[in-house]
């Protein structure tokens, strides 16, 4: 299991290939990547991601460990960036490895649902004419109830 909280960009291809190559007897690898998109109706120039340094790594490790236990994963990878990101930059990725695809897909969804509302990150959309904190959505909180 690997969790990385970092400012710098990551290479999706290198990370995904490295993760897949490190597995044995795992029939399925799923990756998900989150990308900065314009939520400010065309005016966004960047996204600023703040986090809680003392807590972030630990919170992500707990979420990843839960996923590994629950779906008996061979491995899980979480990378989440912070700082100022431009449009279309990759914010984060998760990868899961399991013997069968259903477990790999479900575990990746579980990771994403928990990262959204239980990992201490806050997004702010920077537009030419001002900046606005992204509000958490009720549906993100509701998504946790299915697990």
């Amino acid at each position, binding site marked *: 299991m690997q969790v990385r909280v970092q400012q710098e960009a990551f290479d999706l291809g290198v990370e995904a290939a490295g993760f897949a190559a490190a597995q044995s007897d795992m029939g399925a690898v799923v990756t998900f990547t989150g990308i900065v998109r314009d939520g400010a109706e065309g005016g966004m120039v960047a996204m600023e991601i703040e986090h*809680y340094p003392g807590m972030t790594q630990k919170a992500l490790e707990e979420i990843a460990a839960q996923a590994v236990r629950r779906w008996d994963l061979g491995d899980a990878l979480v990378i989440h960036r912070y700082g100022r990101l431009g449009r279309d930059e990759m914010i984060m990725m998760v990868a899961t490895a399991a013997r069968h695809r259903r477990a790999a897909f479900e575990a990746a969804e579980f990771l994403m649902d928990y990262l959204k509302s239980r990992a201490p990150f*806050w997004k702010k959309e920077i537009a030419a004419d001002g900046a606005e904190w992204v509000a*958490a959505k009720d549906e993100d909180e509701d998504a946790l109830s299915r697990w």
Partner: protein
Amino acid sequence: MDVLYFAWVRERIGVPKERVETGAATVADLVEELRAREPRYAAAFADLSALRVAVDQELADFDAGLAGVREVAFFPPMTGG
């Protein structure tokens, strides 16, 4: 203890972190003390349903006890992913 603020809570209060001497028994008691300090605190803590809290870097409830606690953080609902 150290009290930390993130995102708009930090902006509204004006500092990311401060040392607070308090005898508050719970997070809710600490919030009451902070609210009484200055209008910027009252504004930040006006609606607790819009806030989340972590005690010693673990998510907690507002009725969590503060005995032996070193760090309390207040922030809006998280928007990771």
